[in-house]
């Protein structure tokens, strides 16, 4: 997995590239603990995210809960296979997907 961040003021876009699995999810989690400081508008760009497992979902859930307190969060360019996992777990209804 590779993470690319683009920040303008309090607006942050995080591009997650590759696989968000049990091996890589802790890296994203760690990244987010400081990257979200002061952010009010968070976008995850999943255009190049090919695969997500429950470890990745947990990171998204924690991020969503945090952003609910300090701003908004959305997921963009979600692929069919990742969307399927979000749908199955009810996450699609908990998050803003555009």
């Amino acid at each position, binding site marked *: 997995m590779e993470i690319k961040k683009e920040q303008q003021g309090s607006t942050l876009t995080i591009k997650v590239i590759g696989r968000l699995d049990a091996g890589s999810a802790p890296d994203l989690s760690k990244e987010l603990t400081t990257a979200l400081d002061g952010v009010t508008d968070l976008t995850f760009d999943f255009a190049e995210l090919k695969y997500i497992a429950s470890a990745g979902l947990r990171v998204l859930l*924690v991020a969503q*809960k945090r952003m609910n307190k300090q701003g908004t969060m959305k997921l963009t360019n979600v692929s069919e296979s990742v969307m399927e996992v979000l749908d*199955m777990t009810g996450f699609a209804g908990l998050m803003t997907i555009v």
Partner: protein
Amino acid sequence: MEKITVDATIDNLQTVTDFATNYLEEHSCPMKVAMQIELVIEEIFVNIASYAYHPEIGPATFCLEFEENPAAVLMTFIDGGRPYNPLERIDPDTTLGIEERDEGGLGIFLVKKNVDEITYEYEDGKNILRMKKIF
């Protein structure tokens, strides 16, 4: 039957999924199904790696067997860790709001959603989880 035994650690997750992916390709498994199988393998293997022997490290064995008419794969996970029946885990309530949702139980829930049959038994000191996925 194809079989691999590794130390149940997160570092070996890729070894097990790669092992499976190679055989799935050989058996012309559709890509979408292969990805669902990969998810199933990850969730079970990660569970074993995280809890079965904790804080020690122990082995996990993964077996693959293919069936025809209908095309399907039989998958078995065997570990010698503490007895644990993942099927007894209560499914997360997917209708709950964000603040009520907790982070547990998602993995085994995804497994159940992505296989056609799943059984668990504890025999001779081993957890044995068998799953069937129709292509």
